């Protein structure tokens, strides 16, 4: 299944990385994945599987959490990037939208968006145009542009975080749970934006998502992580057809979608053991 990804030299390749927090907690136990140029790749997996950790390892934000990559390599655009600073990466076009929003609470929404353009050198005009673009995507933000981000609602903050990343005109976006806390309508919209950017501007996406259903609808390729290991990967459409995935991630058992009222009492999980 991996062959296809290897044919075109991947834009981003993660080779067998291990991540340790605090020198003692081993979280990733050899994760490899590759993201082709112009692709949308989804990382799926349960809570604590290590999705966020993987993304942070790529964008080099681990150090700030006292974590480190102890093994393996990460190659972006032909160069090893473990030793680069996150800002170098952003300059090279790879930006991360962090899980849990992380807006700058004391800055207004508009200032928050403007920080996204920090690394840009293409003049005020272009930045202003992009600002308009973000506001067009998220009209709600335009209404709240002068509010301090700390006081806005959870969903507004999430939009702000995504808009902020868009402001840097990235070529690659690492999206960590973009749908979290957003109204269903907006979730659709966000994924529309993703696919738009992807097709029109060739932006590459790597996204960690709990909403498997929608993620697999838009992604081209998917990886499933369980406790720090990749247990399965494949074309999105293949994954959608997979029995296990259907049962555990899409909730479609043999007899179609179950109501949440009817799920079994305390069923044991099935784990893929790698």
């Amino acid at each position, binding site marked *: 299944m991996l062959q296809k990804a290897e044919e075109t030299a991947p834009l981003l390749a993660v080779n067998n990385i291990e991540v*340790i927090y*605090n*020198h*003692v*907690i*081993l979280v990733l136990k050899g994760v490899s994945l590759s993201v082709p140029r112009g692709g949308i790749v989804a990382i799926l997996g349960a809570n604590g599987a290590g999705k966020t950790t993987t993304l942070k390892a790529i964008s080099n934000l681990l150090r700030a959490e006292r974590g480190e990559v102890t093994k393996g390599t990460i190659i972006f655009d032909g160069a090893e990037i473990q030793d680069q600073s996150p800002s170098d990466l952003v300059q090279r076009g790879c930006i991360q939208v962090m899980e849990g929003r992380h807006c700058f609470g004391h800055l207004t929404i508009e200032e928050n968006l403007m920080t996204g353009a920090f690394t840009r050198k293409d003049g005020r005009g272009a930045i202003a145009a992009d600002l308009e673009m973000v506001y067009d995507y998220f009209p709600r933000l335009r209404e709240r542009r002068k509010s301090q981000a700390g006081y806005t609602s959870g969903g507004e903050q999430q939009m702000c975080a995504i808009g902020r990343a868009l402001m840097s005109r990235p070529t690659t976006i690492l999206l960590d749970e973009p749908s979290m806390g957003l109204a269903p309508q907006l979730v659709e919209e966000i994924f529309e934006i993703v696919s738009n950017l992807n097709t029109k501007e060739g932006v590459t996406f790597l996204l960690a998502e709990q909403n498997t259903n929608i993620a697999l609808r838009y992604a081209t390729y998917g990886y499933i992580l369980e406790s720090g290991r990749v247990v399965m990967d494949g074309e999105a459409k293949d994954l959608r057809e997979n029995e296990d995935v259907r049962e555990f991630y899409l909730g479609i058992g043999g007899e179609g979608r179950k109501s949440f009222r009817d799920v079994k009492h305390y069923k044991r999980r099935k784990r893929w053991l790698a």
Partner: protein
Amino acid sequence: MLYREAGDFKTTYREDNQTFPIKSERYLFWGAMLIAFCVVPFFVNSYWEKSVLVPLLVWSLVALGLNILTGYCGQVSLGTGAFMAVGAFACYKLMTAFPGMSIFFVVILSGGVTALVGMLFGLPSLRIKGFYLAVATLAAQFFLIWVFNKFAWFYNYSASGQITAPERTVFGIIVTGPNAAPWATYLFCLTFLFIFAWLARNLTRGRIGRSWMAIRDMDIAAEIIGVEPLRAKLSAFAMSSFFIGVGGALFFSVYLGAAEVTEAFGIDKSFLALFMVIIGGLGSILGSFLGAAFLVLMPVFLKNLFVGSLGWPTDVAAHIQIMLIGGLIIFFLIVEPHGLAQLWRLTKEKLRLWPFPY
């Protein structure tokens, strides 16, 4: 494997709530206590007493107190020096006003007086937070020191403004004044520390401690959960001041023997105590001891190393020593921002995994 907890299972919640849940740790602790109470007193001389042990014990007590406030309840305070002064002056006034009272109760009462004063100065914490509060506590620091310096009643109108601890006894054993035997002052302080460490442990492991920590970690959420901020904060201020007051009383009566308020309880004491709890580990009882030990012993050690062993001129040695202490503080923070206590925990975790790296 040096350190194991495997095979040490708890069957009751009571056992699980123990201070030292792991057997080997428990033995280690009681062993250490045995040595501290029964062996050390026979060997302590006045140098060890006055330069190392008593300051260590007293500062541990103070650090413990500050840790309750700053480490457990999250209220950064820079008024420690002044609260120590309250303890010291309360102690002095009580000693001189009631010469017959046992010094033990005098010290406890001094703590009580300090607790009241601490609560008073803790009131602003209901509105003021973080570093704003830290700086605001300096108001207490400067104001109280000014009061003790200003009103001669506090130092019994002595011409010099100094207070000198008269000789007092416990069970007929002299513990204050110049004629106190090293072992006596040592044991006196150790007893206090032991009692108070136990008290601190009890307070922090139950409901009270949790309400403090909840306020520290997220005060709004804590309030919504049902923690009453007024009570939690004021009780932390009171308890912390109580400890610090007792520490101040011992500091003056047992350790220094004489003190002048501006010099003995200046703002540098406030900072020193804060260093101790941060270096040792915020929100950790063990950390209070480690921090106090680090900051009391390190200078003595460095001094003896440089001047005593290497024979450097005292001033060069002193300058380098200051630099080194600064450097070490930074170094430890880089290695483990959560203090020596956390370092110790991580070491244990590593030992547990030993010989595997993780």
